């Protein structure tokens, strides 16, 4: 059974249709890369699944929960508050610009949600946080404030913060785009390790080599549509659609 099941999802801002007929599955343990030119709706797609935007139509099922499904009238409706909260707790989102809480230490950034939302004890949350920081190579930075860290370190903290909620699935929206080129590697390495650990992930990225190397499945979006989806060999191979080839060519020529 797929962890995430999206069917015919659409989203419009007023008269502007940003997402059209989006359908895909994410299986447990799968790493899915979403690629496509800027403005193609990749962020909006992640934001709809993470409840930061309201979808206009279609179906979203998550871990067997009907999060957003067609109602009796045919128009899709959201589940009750309780279900949406449960979905929210089980999905994590890593932002392009980190969005760490600047007034909290690194440790507190990571423990705050487990303590306040999951009602874990402070001690347990701190143990989990220290473990995650160790995994991110940041165990010495627990008492620092986000402003004292480099961009790459901040992004690793924000990944740890999302992981501390023990999500079923983790979404990344261009996690390396705000970083200096020499810092992107450390983040990609972390994501690669998470993939090896079997973490279910959806990663919006412009790092084509990374997508090709890590993803089990690649989704290519353009103009609010999914143009093509499949395994990396297919999209990066000879049998890919013309538009996919064109996009990849433009990217590799830059």
């Amino acid at each position, binding site marked *: 059974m797929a962890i995430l099941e999206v069917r015919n999802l659409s989203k419009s801002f007023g008269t502007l249709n940003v997402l059209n007929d989006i359908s895909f599955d994410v299986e447990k343990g799968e790493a899915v890369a979403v690629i496509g030119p800027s403005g193609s709706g990749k962020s909006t797609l992640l934001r709809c699944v993470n409840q930061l935007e309201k979808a206009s139509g279609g179906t979203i099922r998550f871990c067997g929960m009907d999060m957003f499904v067609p109602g009796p009238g045919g128009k899709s409706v959201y589940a009750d508050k309780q279900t949406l909260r449960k979905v929210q707790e089980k999905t994590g*989102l890593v932002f392009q*610009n980190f969005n760490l809480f600047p007034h909290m230490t690194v440790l507190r950034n990571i423990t705050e949600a487990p303590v306040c939302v*999951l009602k874990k004890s402070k001690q347990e949350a701190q143990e989990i946080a220290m473990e995650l920081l160790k995994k991110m190579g940041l165990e010495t930075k627990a008492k620092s404030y986000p402003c004292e860290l480099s961009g790459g370190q901040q992004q690793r903290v924000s990944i740890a913060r999302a992981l501390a909620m023990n999500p079923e699935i983790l979404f990344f929206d261009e996690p390396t785009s705000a970083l200096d080129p020499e810092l992107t590697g450390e983040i990609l390495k972390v994501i690669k390790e998470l993939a090896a650990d079997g973490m279910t992930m959806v990663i919006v990225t412009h790092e084509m080599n990374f997508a090709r190397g890590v993803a089990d499945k690649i989704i290519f979006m353009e103009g609010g549509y999914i143009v093509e989806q499949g395994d990396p060999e297919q999209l990066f191979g000879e049998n890919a659609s013309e538009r996919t080839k064109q996009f990849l060519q433009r990217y590799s020529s830059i």
Partner: protein
Amino acid sequence: MTGEQLSTLFGLMLEYAVPTLKIFAFTLLYSIPLGMVVALLKMCRFKPISWLTNIYILIMRGTPLLLQLIVAQYSVPYIVRSDICPDFIKSLLENVDIRSESYTFNMMLFAFVLNYAAYFAEIFRGGLESIPKGQYEASRCLGFGKFQTFFRIILPQVIKRVVPASSNEIITLVKDTSLASAIPYMEIMYIAKKQVPLYASLMPLFMAGVFYFVFATVLTVLFSAVEKKLDYYR
């Protein structure tokens, strides 16, 4: 002036510093919470409320505080007699004794609070709006509820951002309390002015000046310590 005169004068000034402190304290006590409410009203998505709030802020900031203080003192008898005033307000105001001492103080405080709430409201609104949208989104994605988001994530950051502008406003209030002397309300400025011809000396005014200076400077030092304490993050 003799030493005895000086000490009598000093005692008098100290005595009338108390009403000044009273205006200062009560104005802050009411105008800061009211300012928060006004800031939220101005940010209200229901436009008429936002507009009305904005008109109130514009009037408070666009007219002299002195004028507002005097209008507040004189307004009640005129409102009671006016034709357009609703009956329930009239019956409420008719029982007010405009000659009592509490009336003078309450109406003065009313004007001070309304005026300062408008300034605080703009500071608080600026602080709230300066918090990036991403903070709300990150908080939401981690499962925090609306209240948790506001009190744990947003408010601490807003406080840091509004402290410098608020402390300016509070230090201005120290000096603005002297406008009460024009009502007249007997505080340190009023008494100082009265004593000048009596002693044929500028000493009373000088003493009042020292009082304001010390008060404002103590607050300045205090607030820069607070700012420093909040400086642990950027």
